């Protein structure tokens, strides 16, 4: 939101004057978590500029700087604020680069699952009858298998279908698809319920009478009226998607060691748990927790602020 403010002051004014803007300014939890999140997202997106070292550039890594503890412990060394790993990589830089991967995958997964869920929900709600029954049974079946299990299985199948040379470069895509394919049902159910109400209304009837094509009615007329609850669950699901990505990477079915996300970093750090290098696992975990916490707090606030029953 602050980014918008510089370009379009009019829009910021409008946001601050709206109900939601008022609630935002008067809820310390909301603007505090938005601030923290903005900082985390910006530092992650601009990791190449912010990070002291590029952990993928072998010329910047020195093996004699391996396993240095954080700077406040004895043996700590500038500029390795949070210490280094056994290959001599700076932990802070690895965390910033890892957050970038985690955030991008989480965001993309939410987008794709929203796209799938909204299309299926619109189709099911608009046509009803047999189409509706088939699509919703499909959703029931997806929900009848625990999500985590399903995601592991889908990612394993996708990976095995790819030729071995493409597995590493495409692991982010595989992750996005496996998270999206297991989390679309919630959007589909919400949109379907709303569509069934909307399609009986007069503006839809009017559009049908003048023969507006069905896809256009769904996309242009009904869709905007279903977006509020969808966006709220998307915010709440962003935290979940980032957690799913981290869990899959931690289990070894996610991002490879060559492009570590936060989950992969925790997986690597876990191997050094008993050798005393606690900073390898504690800092990535804290960063992950902080990202998900601020997203969840923001999502909780948004849900309550948009719920007219609570006003």
């Amino acid at each position, binding site marked *: 939101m602050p980014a918008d403010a510089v370009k379009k002051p009019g829009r910021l004014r409008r946001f601050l004057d709206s109900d939601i803007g008022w609630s935002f300014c008067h809820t310390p939890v909301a603007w505090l978590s938005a601030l923290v999140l903005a900082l985390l997202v910006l530092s992650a997106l601009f990791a190449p500029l912010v990070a002291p070292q590029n952990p993928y550039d072998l010329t910047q890594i020195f093996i004699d700087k391996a396993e240095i503890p954080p700077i406040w412990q004895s043996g700590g060394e500038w500029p390795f604020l949070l210490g280094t790993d056994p290959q001599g990589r700076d932990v802070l830089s690895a965390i910033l680069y890892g957050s970038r991967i985690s955030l991008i995958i989480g965001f993309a997964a939410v987008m794709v699952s929203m796209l799938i869920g909204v299309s299926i929900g619109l189709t099911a709600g608009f046509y009803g009858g047999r189409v509706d029954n088939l699509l919703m049974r499909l959703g029931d079946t997806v929900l009848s298998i625990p999500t985590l299990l399903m995601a592991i299985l889908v990612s394993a199948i996708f990976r095995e279908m790819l030729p071995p040379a493409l597995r590493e470069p495409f692991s982010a895509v595989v992750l996005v698809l496996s998270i999206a394919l297991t989390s679309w049902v919630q959007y589909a159910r919400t949109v379907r319920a709303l569509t069934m109400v909307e399609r009986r209304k007069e503006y839809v009837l009017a559009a049908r009478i003048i023969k507006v094509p069905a896809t256009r009615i769904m996309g242009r007329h009904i869709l905007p009226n279903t977006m509020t609850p969808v966006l709220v669950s998307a915010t709440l699901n962003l935290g979940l998607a980032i957690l799913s990505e981290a869990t899959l990477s931690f*289990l070894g079915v996610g991002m490879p060691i060559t492009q570590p996300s936060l989950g992969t970093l925790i997986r690597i750090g876990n191997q050094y748990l008993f050798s005393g290098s606690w900073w390898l696992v504690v800092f990535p975990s804290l960063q992950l927790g902080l990202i998900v916490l601020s997203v969840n707090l923001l999502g909780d606030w948004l849900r309550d602020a948009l719920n007219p029953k609570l006003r």
Partner: protein
Amino acid sequence: MPAFLLKRLFNAAGVMLAVAFLAFLTFRFVGDPVELMLNEQASQQQRDELRVRLGLDKGFVLQYATFVGNAARGDFGISYRNQQDVFTLISERFPATFELVLVATFLSLAVGIPLGVYTAIRRDSFPAKMLQFVSVLGVSLPSFALGILFILIFSVTLQWLPAFGRGEVVQIGWWSTGLLTASGRKALILPGITLSLFQITLVMRLVRAEMLETMRTDFIRFARARGLPSRAVHFGHALRNCLMPVITVTGLQIGNLIAFALVTETVFQWPGMGMLFVQAVTFVDIPVMAAYLIVVSFIFVTLNTLVDLTYAWVDPRLREDALTGGANAR
């Protein structure tokens, strides 16, 4: 009632067939079993013979039917990795996972319900607000990271509790239990807490929401007017009315806990079904993956169906609704 029962069982069977289909598809998509089982020098004739022996020359539908038939009898084939019967492998590991899930469920109720009641009846007090915030924290920190932090604090630094394994186990028939030895019970503490934390926050939030709802109803006001002590009002009247949804959610979540146990089991090197599955995924051991999927989904679907049936048994309105399509809804 019989019609409702049949309908529910029919639904459950449909879902299980779909799950079996998914498991069957993994076999078809992920590599050719003939290539996986024979070496490169095998002649075309050997390949064809194996193909006939495995039934792969038959039609798609017939192969699926054979797969479902075998799975229903507990025959999931032989593990690619260690050449053991898959069903034996899974049933050996089942007790470890079951005990872990049992402890986690017990903890979530024993801790979650009192916290939920407290945050509901003192909802404006400082501790209650803190607990609400901590519950968001509990949902945000991934359970594997919490498990690792617990190991770091209680095993590596303080050395109070073991960091991995089940400790000593006692064998009773085919069931192995860690509950009867001191080291077995000690080994359960950290994984049990790790697995239950998410569940505790869930139960706490649920009980709080239900309590707040119930406290507004007339019969609570009436109970107060009769001059009953607030203890009796809160626990005897209000809490009792909140327990039904709590029992439902706990029942439904057991399936999720079994699936989520695979993360906890990986962190604590707990020799359960979940760790078997994660290892199978790394080695692309398809028979084990497929069997685990079917077993966990079976438990999940059975629990869901049981919860539905219990509801219909307790509340007759529901079973009439399901049959008449909601025409009798009040």
